[in-house]
């Protein structure tokens, strides 16, 4: 039963998850900031776009520290990869990544949060919109992945 649910073991999931939680908790405890990532993808447009939407104060205030956070994410993942000496390249087809990415960017910014902002920070805050958003995007993603797999799209 246990092996069926977790065919690849559980240690790396628990250790990695605890690291993610510790990072998000540490940032909140020390700086008071909510370490969601999706707003980075809106905030970067404030560097060049003259649209009033992207020049809103909250995006201009966030763009520097969210960029630093994103650099940290890349460095941290690279440190782990150098440490274990195994580079990973996905086999998922480019059009799935691109079209999926557009929907992820549009959807997370409409919902104002993603897996980190709503899924971890929001649930940790026990706020209704984040709990609702997480249940919805998880449910819809599970349905979508099943449809894609049923259509025979692999990988």
């Amino acid at each position: 039963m246990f092996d069926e649910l977790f065919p690849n073991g559980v240690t790396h999931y628990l250790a990695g998850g605890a690291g993610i939680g510790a990072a998000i908790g540490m940032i909140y405890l020390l700086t008071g900031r909510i370490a969601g990532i999706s707003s980075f993808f809106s905030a970067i447009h404030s560097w060049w776009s003259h649209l009033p939407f992207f020049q809103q104060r909250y995006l201009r205030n966030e763009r520097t520290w969210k960029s630093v956070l994103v650099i940290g994410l890349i460095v941290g993942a690279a440190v782990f990869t150098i440490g274990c000496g195994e580079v990973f390249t996905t086999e998922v087809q480019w059009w799935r990544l691109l079209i999926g990415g557009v929907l992820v960017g549009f959807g997370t910014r409409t919902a104002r949060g993603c897996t980190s902002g709503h899924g971890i920070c929001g649930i940790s805050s026990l706020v209704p919109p984040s709990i609702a958003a997480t249940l919805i995007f998880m449910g819809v993603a599970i349905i979508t992945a099943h449809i894609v797999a049923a259509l025979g799209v692999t990988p």
Partner: protein
Amino acid sequence: MTRTLVLVLIGGVLFGFGLAWSTMAQPEVVLSFLTLDDFGLALVMGAALAVSLPIYQLAPRCMNKPTAGESFERIPRRVKPSTIIGGMIFGIGWGLSGVCPGAGVASLGIGNWPILFALIGMALGAYAQGVLASRKPATHPHETDSVSAT
């Protein structure tokens, strides 16, 4: 400000390290959860929440302000239609690609260059959302949102 950015950078490095270790930076692993072949992602979320939830609950109650900041940001408590609609659109994209914003960014660090397709897509999608939101009559000015959830 510099002190804040240094702390954010350290936190970001730990965040990315955790995403790589948990293998959530690999779209295939996320997809194997979404097709219910490997429930690992639920363990990752559970372990993350086990650490972050007590901190998020206790810190604002027990401290007047963060160690190196003015105040604790709060996520608005009101559920808006956009929360639901956006969550559904995000879910379709996540189910198609196996990539979410944090894991996508960390994926660059594990050497997964094709993830650039997803990251460029996210930047385009976020831009489209801004353009669309600009066209709507400003009945709810976004400035009134004290905090963006993500």
